[in-house]
Each structure stands twice: as structure tokens, then as C-alpha cells.
């Protein structure tokens, strides 16, 4: 929303005085870095910026931003943020959450903020694990995950976050990678520009409890061949040599040569291309899609809510307390 002004503040101005307390090597550091950079570059006003989070390693985020911040309770950040944004639509509200916070305990609030389409940005740090509680599997962990509470492997089929988001009527869905600063910056910018709820899944390395997931999916060495960056209006191309492509064939996605690749259109009215592309995650032969997976326009909740108040005032006149109290049938006793 904010116009890109001459950056009066630097990245450092967005760092709070709190010591950052994630494990050394945790992917969260890079995301913090990217955010502070984004804030500075987009000319954000710290006084008008609010970070709201739930509980988890990721949710410590607000403490490290020199903006307003609210570290709430587990899973409820979208609900708290809804109150913040409706009460004061001028605030630039960012939600920071984890895969457990947003898709386990908080799944319903996430779904509802997405359908309401508040103009906020959601950063979901997906490390496919519960970090803060020391390593239990999460709703994004693949079947068979052997962790503390699942010594014989997890049984539940995971959510695919982008599919969950569009199933909840999300208007903006994107995915990026903690270690890819450039990509992260690009996605943050796109999300900030979107009017409505932006849902960004950030693949994040929990070096303590789940670094294997990361190593086999998006770590630098495997990234070019294991991910595809989808850019609106451009062909879907990937590979270290950018020689691989993807194309749609009815209701499947196929690998093809770069030349044969289809153009990516995240603004397609139907959810279909997003769910198709997001579905590739199930298939180890296919790259993990990153980039903007969906971006469509829809009315924004807090605007509608406040517009009704204004309309009511415009039509009925600004109410006085006496209009409410001295209302209906009144009689006097002397």
C-alpha cells in the first residue's frame, strides 16, 4: 500500500533492541533480515506497522522488529490481526506464523481470514515441524515422518498449504525460500502490493529438528532442479540450465522442454491452475513451485465493515446516546 518513497530509514532502523534468540543457523534469521530490508526499501513507517504472531519459534518474530508488535497465543494471530485491522485500517498489518501455528491449532482462523480477505500479509514459516516444542511432526510433515511423537512414522496425510489457502478462497498465495534473499524480497514486495490477504509460505530450515526436509528440497545445491519459480505472464521454466519446462495437459502438469513450457497465469479466475501446480509437491519427480501461485482481486473485509458504519452515519446521521436511550415508547410519571 505504501508508496515507494525515498528510503528515509535503513534496515537497521527496523531491528528492535532485543537479542535474537533462534538457534544458530536457523532459517528464521534470513527471513528477519529480508523483512527488515523490505521495510526499509519500501519506505515503511515503523509507527504504522504492526506484526502479529502466534506461538512458535517463528512467532517470536515481532519482538525483533522495531515496529508495533503483538506476540499472541497459539494459532490465534489471524483473529487478533482481524481486530487490529478492522479497528484501524490505516495500520500495515503483518502476521507471522508457523506450520503448526497456522495449520494445526490455527487452521480455522487462517481459513476465515483468507475468505474475509483482510488487507494483511501472512508469512507462514514452513519447516514441516514443531520447532518450539522440540520436534514433533506437523500438519505439513509428509506421511511416515519419524519424530518424537511418531516413533513408527506419522500416518496423517499432510496439508498442502497453497491448496488449503485457495480452498479457503485466498486471493493471493505465494511461496518462497528462506535462503533465497532475492526471491524473498520479490515476493514480499508483491504481497505488500496486493490488496487483500496475502498468504506467503516460506520454506524454512529448522536446523535442529528437521534439516533433512530442507536439504532434499530447497537447499542451494538442489534448488535449481527441485524448484520452479513461477512468474506471472512468463513460461514455467526451471533447472540449473533453465532448460526444463512445465506445461498443462488437461488436468495434469507435465515436464517438457523450456521451449514447450506454458505461460503461468496466477490471475486465472478458477482455482484450478493453482491447485494443479501446488499438487506437484506430492510428486518427487516434479519441482516444488515457488513464486506467486495465485493473485486475484476481491473486496476487502475491513473496508466493507467500516464503509457500513460510514453509510449508516450518512443515512441516519451520527447517533447520539440519547437517540438510543430515549428510543421507542417513552412515558413520563410525575
Amino acid at each position, binding site marked *: 500500500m505504501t508508496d515507494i518513497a525515498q528510503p528515509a530509514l535503513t534496515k537497521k532502523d527496523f531491528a*528492535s533492541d*532485543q537479542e535474537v534468540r533462534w538457534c544458530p543457523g536457523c532459517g528464521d534469521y534470513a527471513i528477519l533480515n529480508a523483512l527488515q530490508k523490505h521495510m526499509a526499501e519500501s519506505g515503511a*513507517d*515503523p*509507527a*504504522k506497522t*504492526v506484526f*502479529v504472531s502466534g*506461538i512458535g519459534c517463528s512467532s517470536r518474530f*515481532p*519482538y525483533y*522488529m*522495531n*515496529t*508495533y*508488535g*503483538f*506476540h*499472541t*497465543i497459539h494459532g*490465534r494471530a489471524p*483473529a*487478533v*490481526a*482481524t*481486530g*487490529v*485491522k*478492522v*479497528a*484501524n485500517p*490505516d*495500520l500495515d498489518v503483518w502476521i507471522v506464523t508457523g506450520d503448526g501455528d497456522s495449520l494445526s491449532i490455527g487452521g*480455522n*482462523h487462517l481459513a*476465515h481470514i483468507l475468505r474475509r480477505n483482510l488487507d494483511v500479509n501472512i508469512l507462514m514459516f514452513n519447516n514441516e515441524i514443531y520447532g518450539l516444542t522440540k520436534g514433533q511432526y506437523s500438519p505439513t510433515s509428509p506421511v511416515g515422518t519419524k519424530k518424537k511423537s511418531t516413533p513408527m512414522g506419522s500416518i496423517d496425510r499432510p496439508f498442502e498449504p497453497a491448496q488449503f489457502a485457495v480452498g479457503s478462497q485466498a486471493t493471493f498465495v505465494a511461496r518462497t525460500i528462506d535462503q533465497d534473499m532475492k526471491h524473498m524480497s520479490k515476493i514480499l514486495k508483491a504481497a505488500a502490493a496486493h490488496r487483500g490477504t496475502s498468504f506467503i509460505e516460506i520454506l524454512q530450515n529448522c536446523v535442529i529438528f528437521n534439516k533433512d526436509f530442507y536439504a532434499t528440497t530447497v537447499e542451494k545445491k538442489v534448488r535449481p532442479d527441485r524448484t520452479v519459480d513461477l512468474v506471472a505472464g512468463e513460461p514455467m521454466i526451471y533447472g540449473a540450465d533453465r532448460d526444463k519446462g512445465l506445461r498443462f495437459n488437461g488436468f495434469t502438469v507435465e515436464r517438457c522442454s523450456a521451449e514447450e513450457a506454458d505461460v503461468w497465469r496466477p490471475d486465472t479466475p478458477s482455482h484450478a491452475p493453482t491447485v494443479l501446480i501446488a499438487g506437484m509437491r506430492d510428486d518427487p519427480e516434479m519441482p516444488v513451485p515457488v513464486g506467486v501461485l495465485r493473485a486475484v482481486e476481491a473486496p476487502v473485509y475491513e473496508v466493507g*465493515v*467500516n464503509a*457500513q*458504519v460510514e*453509510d*449508516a*452515519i450518512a443515512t*441516519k*446521521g*451520527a*447517533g447520539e*446516546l*440519547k*437517540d*438510543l*436511550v*430515549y*428510543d*421507542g*415508547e*417513552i*412515558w*413520563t*410519571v410525575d
Partner: protein
Amino acid sequence: MTPPTAQDTSAGELPLQQLDRVVLRFAGDSGDGMQVTGNQFTRTSALFGNDLATLPDFPAEIRAPVGTRPGVSGFQLQFSSSDIHTPGDQPDVLVAMNPAALMVNIDTLKKGGIVIVNTDAFKATDLKKAKCDTNPLEDGTLDGFRVIEVGINSRVSEALADSPLSNKDKQRCKNFYTLGLMYWVYSRPLEPTLEWLEEKFKGKDDLIAANQTALKAGYNAGDIRELFQGQYEVPKATLQPGTYRNVMGNQALAIGLVAGAKLAGIKPVYCSYPITPASSVLEFLAGYKNHGVVTIQSEDEIAAICSAIGASFAGSLGMTGTSGPGMALKGEAMGLAISTELPLVIVDVQRAGPSTGMPTKVEQSDLLSSIFGRNGDAPMPVIAISKPSDAFELSIDACRIAVQYMTPVILLSDNFIANGAEPWALPDLDTLKPFPVRFTEEKTEDFQSFGRDEKLARPWVKPGTPGMEFRIGGLEKAPSSNISYDPDNHQAMTDMRHQKVRNVADSIPTPEVHGAESGDVLVLGWGSTVGILRQAVENAQAKGQSVSRIHLTHVWPLPHGLDEIFARFKVVLIPEMNVAQMTSLLRGELPDHNYIPFNKVTGQPFLVTEIEAEIKRVLDEHAGA
């Protein structure tokens, strides 16, 4: 509007008897419009100048099958020429539109009372629906009552012979016929209802005409008059001078919340998930948008309180409302509001529990869970409304405490208050004391996000204010608002949170003792029992018994001065609609007194006679001591 006169110029030949008070109960199928009938009678009586109290009694189902007992809808009111405080223990008159209504209500009718039955609804099929093996009009069920049999269906058909309405629609005027009849019996004017019908059905002239005709036909049913052996009159009461309106508890509460926010000078944001009997608070507030009220219908109760907390964080006055099951869900978030010390008003319209319980029935059983029902040492003030007409004031007070002390506040109401209507002596709005919020906008030398003023409240900084950025959360915090695991800090913050809530007692009045300042028995009540306890104690006092009464509105922290008051009585008798929760609370807080619990957990209010009997029992046991 000035009160119309009660003169029935056509009453001529029959005697007119004066009564001090009458308890009337309309009962019929949910489809019979008994609530409308009751409300019209109430309204007319209020405009006429009686004191009154009402008790609507809805079926639990939206639309139970026609004619069945669970489908019975009732409305009881007491109207009087002197002060009254309850809808009455037992009706003097019961109007029963069908056998189910008769069977469900006959046990409450006063011995020798009048029962008016719609004989047209006592056919075999009707009896079957009501699960009557024999016809109660004939099997002795009504022995000892004065039975007035009226074929209401046929009479309505006759009266509306010329109406273009369908037969079905004509029969829907039955309730106005009945109302007309009762208006005649109690010498009430027809005008208020005739006018109301025109307003209500504006544009539907046939409906207006038919209902008005039915009303008049009932009023003028000369032959029925004979059966009543005369007409009654309940003269005006000498009410407290003032301006009045009728108000339901949930409506007064909603208006109070708006008033509270206005007095605080900030925007009210009410977030709620519907639940019986709290839903109408949301619905009323949603109609007040031109007062700057923002309402959010949330996805659940947890979201509702969290959004309200978010709104308060952003500098508005966050509010949420629910009933028992919803309260049980909000506990964790209440803790967050306590820990972050944000203002918040949490309305709990209590209903019978545990679990889903009996959603349409009354109970006061959320007292202890309001005070203690959260993990950790998590204190918060709790206020209890006693009746529709004080919901306004106490809602304002909840807002005041919330913003002055930077704390969430629970505002307890109940089913009986929520749906009960009574005349409200309208306050002089100029006398309401504003308590404008002053957001902290600049950092003084020693500024701390969890610094303290003289009340121990922390400063309220509104996001958007330049240079004041800070972070809060549910982890324990140092005064700076930074996370702290320091042992001494936790002790200090815990003590601070407790003391702050205790300090609220400094800002609330010691409740008045009604009756002698000392004596044998002090009857202590809270919440919606107020009218019943008042009546019972006044009756006991009239008999010369050594009984006084006190009623708590601020149940946590307890107001100052109670210890001294209790010490002046031999025993404190505590009637409650729960299992002795206030008794436990008082024993824990003020252990040096002799408390006697008296409990009723039937989903129904106490009867005045029950309280009187208990007072007598307690006096017999303790007066000599």
C-alpha cells in the same frame, strides 16, 4: 405519548372491583403469538401507569411440533398499583390456548385462580398431540379453579366473517381476540394496541383490520363478561417520577456498551459468535452502526475474543459476548488480555449448565469460573447485572473499569435478565461522568510500557503513534515489556496484577443494606434474583422479622465494607441459582462469618415464597443463638 385512560364506558352493568396486583399468564403454542400478546398487555399496562415485571418463557426448539408440550410458549406478567419486583410466583389467571399449554402451566396456577381455555382446541387430535389420555376439561384436572370456557376459534371466525383473509390467516388473529378479552377484564384501553397494529402491519390493511376487529370482538364479547362476574381495575402505581421506557436486558446492555465507549471517547468493537441467550446483544449492536459501533460476527468464540483483544491493542474498546459454553472456550485468550493488560469487556449471559445444559433456562452458575477459570494466577474484575434496567449502568461501569485499570472485565448477565423486559427509569444523560481515555503519546524520562499510574494501570499506547513502538505478548514481561524470566520480576508482576484488580474495589461503592443495619439474618444476593429477594425480604420485614438484605453488583473484587456489615448479623443467607458458588467465594475471602447457602438449580427463578420459607427456617434456627 401520554398514558391513555382506563375507562371502559361499556362496562355498565357489571361490578368493577379494585385490585392491588394481578399475575397473568398467557400460554399457547409457539405459533399462537403469546409473546406478542404478553408484550402488548405489558406495554398497555406500562403506558397506563402500573408497575410491572414480566417473565417470558420460550420453548427450547425453534418450532416444536404444533400442539405438543415442548412447543408451549408462555408469557407471565405481574402488574400492580404498588411497587412490585417480580413477575409473581403463581398466576392469578391463566390463559391456555390449547391442552398442551394447559397441562404445562396448570400446576403453577394459584389455588382458586381463573383459567381461561380455548375449548375449540380440545378435540381428540389436540388431546393426542398434548399427550392427554383424557380431556383435562372433564377429568377433574381443573377442580378447584374457576374455569372460563371460550370457543376462541369459532368466535374469531365469526368476528372475521367479512374479512378477505384466508381461514388460516384469520385464525392467526386468535391472540388479539384473547388480548381484547383480557383488556376488558382488566379495564385496559385498546388504543395503544390498535395503534401498534397499524404501525406493525403498515401497508397490509387486511391484516390491520382483521387483528383490530378480533381485538375489539374479544373486548366486546358481552356473553363472556357474565362468566367473569365483573371487571377488575388495577389502578396506577405511584411510580418514581421520571421518564420511562420498557427495555429488555440484552438491549439495555448493548446500549450501555455503546454509552461506555462514548464516555471513554473511543470506538466500540464488538466481536461475537451467536449463542443463546447472548446473540441479541450482537444483533442490537449491529443496528447501532450510526453510533460508530463496529460489529464482527466471528467464526467462533475464541476468534471473537481475540479480535476484540486486537481491537483494544489498536486503541479501540474491544468487547465480546457469549454464554457459558463460549466462556469456557475464551479462557486462554482472557489470560492473554490479563497478561498484556488490555481493556476488554466480556459479556456472559449465563444459562443453565453444565455443558450445553438447558440453553433457554436461567442459572447463575458461571460465577466461580468467571473468577477462577483460567490457567495461572489470572485475576480479572467481574460485575453482575441484576435486572434489565440496571444493565445500562453496569455496562458503562464495566467499560470504565476496563479502560481506567487497563484490564479485561467480565460482565455477567443471565437468561432471565436478557429476555426480561421492565420499565426503565431513563437516566439524565448529562449526569453520566465521562472517563476519556488518554493514550500515551510521548515518552517521559521514566516511561515504561508496563509502568504504573496510581491505580497501577499501565499506559495505553496506540499503534500508529510515532516513536512509541513496542512489543507485547503473553510471555511474562519486565516493566519495559520485554520478555523476562527473572524470578523476582515474575513475583512482582503477579503481585501487581492481583493488586491492580483488588484496587478496583476503591472505585466501587459499598452496597446498601436494605432494612436494619444489624440483626439476625442478612439475605445476600447477586444477579437476577434481586426482585424476588427484595419482595421476600420486604414481606418478611413486614411480618416483623429481623431480616435485612444486601445485593452485590461487583462480585470481584468484593467491595469494601462487607466484613463490617456481615459482622452485624448472626447469619448471612445466600440464595443462589447454583450450587453455593457465592458462599464458597465469600468463605474464601471473608472467612469470619456464618454463611448459609440456599440453592435452586432447576432452570427456573426462585419463588418469593421459597425465599420467605427459608428466611423463616433460618430465623428459627439461628435467631435464638
